[in-house]
């Protein structure tokens, strides 16, 4: 009995010590630090980066003349693409930025600046 009490006393001291020490070492999680968990906006793409990557995807399309590509071209009027090429480009943009663009939105994207606008405003673009 005396042994048991002695052992318990020895055990309890370090455990309390650890619990206290751990609480002090942990950084405050929610109080305005630079660490923001579950936030997707910290690493959001800059507009320039989006423009650059969108343009490079469009330049890679085999039917496009790379010298004609600029941020404000229209796919069908300026680049001479048809609706099938447009679908192809929008799918390539999905792959580049790891997005899933719903059909309704994808139908509307028919020019470079609309594509840039859509990707830039998409919260999941990466």
């Amino acid at each position, binding site marked *: 009995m005396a042994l048991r009490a002695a052992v318990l006393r020895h055990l309890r001291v370090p455990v309390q010590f650890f619990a206290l020490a751990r609480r002090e070492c942990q950084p405050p999680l929610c109080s305005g630090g630079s660490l923001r968990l579950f936030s997707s906006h910290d690493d959001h793409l800059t507009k320039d980066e989006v423009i650059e990557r969108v343009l490079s995807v469009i330049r890679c399309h085999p039917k496009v003349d790379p010298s004609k590509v600029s941020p404000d071209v229209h796919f069908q009027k300026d680049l001479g693409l048809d609706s*099938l090429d447009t679908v192809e480009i929008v*799918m390539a943009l999905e*792959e580049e930025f790891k997005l899933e663009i719903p059909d309704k939105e994808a*139908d509307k994207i028919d020019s470079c600046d609309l594509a840039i606008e859509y990707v830039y405003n998409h919260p999941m673009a990466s």
Partner: protein
Amino acid sequence: MAAPTRSEALSLLRSLLRTARHFCDYNIREYTKRRALDGFRHNRNLSDPPSISSAYADGKAQLEVAKRQSAVYSLYAPKVKSIMEAHRTN
């Protein structure tokens, strides 16, 4: 069956391209993409409703085949990647 609208046809093409992405094997993935686009280009000038409908129905059937095959092939995924996609893996 009424002829599909333009956006329905484009949506079928999108579904085919999305399904094509799921194939593990580079060659099959690229073939499926190419085949879908070539099929749509081949039929782009169809104008009478019955032939448009039959081409659309054909595409739908192919979509089902592609979906099923991508599931089946995923069970037998190649152990080594194609040299063509080597630069994408790292």
